[in-house]
């Protein structure tokens, strides 16, 4: 993600006011902080809690829970492996998301994201997704990408998409169930004439 605090400010009056309002909102409305289940690489308990709330909102409610899949903690692990500048920008996005006045701006109510109802949270995220402010859309895309990736890449979530999982060729010490390999024809030298 290429969003930086400076770039957010560079958005002009609207962006600057948004950030200022958000900062004020943060001061007025303390958010919820949960205890992370493990030591964190990049996030602190506050931003981890925001991320966990984001994950609950973004991921399907009918599959395994995002807590059960440790989505927020696994995203934190990914952040720890990313370039520090990218990770810092994600943290900035989460901090901004938590701000009560930012939530108000997007119809989520004058409450920190972690204190908002599921409907309010969805409104805020939808607001970022559909925003005309490019950096907010970028922040949404970056955070959503990390969360959704962490959820749907977990083997326990395969059931949520009806995906039976990969075949087993014996990697990782598992007993191999060798799929039948297809006999390959001999190479041909035909040219690939592309129509048009």
């Amino acid at each position, binding site marked *: 993600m290429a969003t930086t605090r400076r770039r957010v400010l560079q958005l002009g009056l609207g962006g600057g006011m948004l950030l200022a309002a958000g900062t004020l909102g943060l001061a007025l409305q303390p958010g919820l902080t949960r205890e992370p289940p493990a030591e964190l690489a990049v996030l602190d308990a506050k931003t981890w809690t925001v991320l966990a709330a984001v994950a609950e909102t973004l991921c399907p409610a009918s599959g395994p829970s995002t807590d059960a899949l440790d989505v927020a903690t696994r995203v934190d692990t990914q952040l720890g492996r990313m370039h520090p500048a990218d990770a810092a920008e994600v943290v900035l996005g989460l901090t901004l998301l938590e701000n009560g006045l930012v939530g108000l701006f997007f119809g989520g109510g004058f409450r920190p994201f972690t204190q908002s109802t599921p409907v309010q949270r969805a409104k805020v995220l939808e607001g970022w*997704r559909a925003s005309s402010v490019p950096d907010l859309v970028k922040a949404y895309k970056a955070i959503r990408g990390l969360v959704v990736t962490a959820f749907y*890449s977990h083997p326990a979530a395969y059931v949520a998409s009806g*995906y039976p999982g990969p075949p087993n060729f014996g990697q990782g010490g598992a007993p191999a169930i060798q799929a039948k390999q297809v006999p390959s024809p001999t190479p041909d030298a035909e040219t690939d004439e592309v129509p048009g």
Partner: protein
Amino acid sequence: MKGRITQGKDITADVVETCDVCIIGSGAGGGVLAAGLVARGLDVVMLEAGGYHTRRDFNLHEETAFPMLYQARGTRATDDLAISILQGRSVGGGTTINWTTCFRTPDRILRHWAEHHGLEALTAATLDPHWEAMEARLNIHAWPEPLANANNRKLLDGCRKLGWEAAPLRRNVKGCANSGYCGMGCPVDGKQSQHVTSIPDAVDGGMRLYADVEVRRLEHDGKRIAAVHGVVMERGRDRDTAHAVTVKPKVVALCGGAINNPVLLLRSELNPNGRVGLRTFLHPVVALAGIYEDEVAPYYGAPQSIGSHHFIDRGPDKMGYFLEAAPMHPMLTASAAGVFGAELDELMRKLPNISGLLALHVDGLLPGDEGGTVTVRPDGRPGIAYPVRPALVEAMRESHMSLARVHLAAGAKKVGTLHKRPLQIRSEADLATLEKAPYGAMEHAIFTAHQMGGCAMGSDVENSVVDVNHRHHTVGNLFVVDGSVLPTALGVNPSHTIYGLAHRARDLVAGAV
């Protein structure tokens, strides 16, 4: 004497090497070049920023594969995040994770290069022997139509019903398990990737390959490269270790691919005419999901086996596009969809019945289409700007219409777009809505799996980076041998073009030693 592969974890002190040729990058260009140089008796050192992995590491789970085998752990994108960039990063480069589709460079592209970029030496006749050699080495052959999976079959059926051209593709596989996991590393070495073909050939002949070594700077005096300076990376993290690898070669071959090659040249202040990083082309891709009553299982079976070039030439002032299928595993599918919550759940629950079809747009051929620009950010990482110009917007609108028609003709009950606000098409009557939808950056998902250009080949020393023989215009012992030299996009998947050019470049590079 047999060479060796040294991994970053085994480098416990600074390394200094001397050699005839230092090859930076181990993908389609670097691998083929390395085998050719070693066969000519040259002493070769290869540096690869990614790790060295074999089929035993490929467990076919996306959570393992993407961080292990892709640039930026699978998160590379343009600066505005409008275009997601899938690009390989491991020994074998893009060939370890590509979907095996092989085309020779189309004649129309070679003619365009001759006319507009002074590359008259590149003709089908001069390149044929190189392609034939690579087709034999990599077992490139047409994938039998009956083996096409249901996903590709939808493309074939839809095109045929519409009277549009579509045909089986050629693939570089031998003993393919038809599993569908080419993008996560082949678990049976059926894909003839560079890490199981040319690179073992080169190592058997004496090449020393250092994995996990990212080259940061070329030391030069403006006329010759004196040394290549690399840093050993911590596997799986964007972190430097304390150890450096320095290579002092007679000749340097830059084979790190589009995006990474320009970044290295820019970092090294090797951009005398200001052309490095310009004309970067991506074959920008859009996708539509067709939802069918019958099971498609788009995650199983050879990922790409059918293609259609029906819309490749849309006239002199319009951007062409071609159609292919995409494997759809849960993580990649969910990432591509912009929606969340219940909407995402509804889409993902239909995954077994979804067919994913792609349109790839041929950038760089129209007058004024300069593609994107690669720069270096202040922290040294790549910056990638890709303006979505009106011709591409128009083509993406048309390609959405084409993909929707294919899905409907193939029997889809519903077709979904990847717009910011997704559209659903259930019949031809809905196509008017699709036509009126917004198109462009951030309006819908755009991807690329084909990165080309940034070190353009050309005869005009003021407007290109290397000459037709891959040699840098001003640095005599520097060659660029991979997809970054392509002066335009190709209109076909690029790997075989790169194999052929690298095969041709063997004697050119060897002759400079």
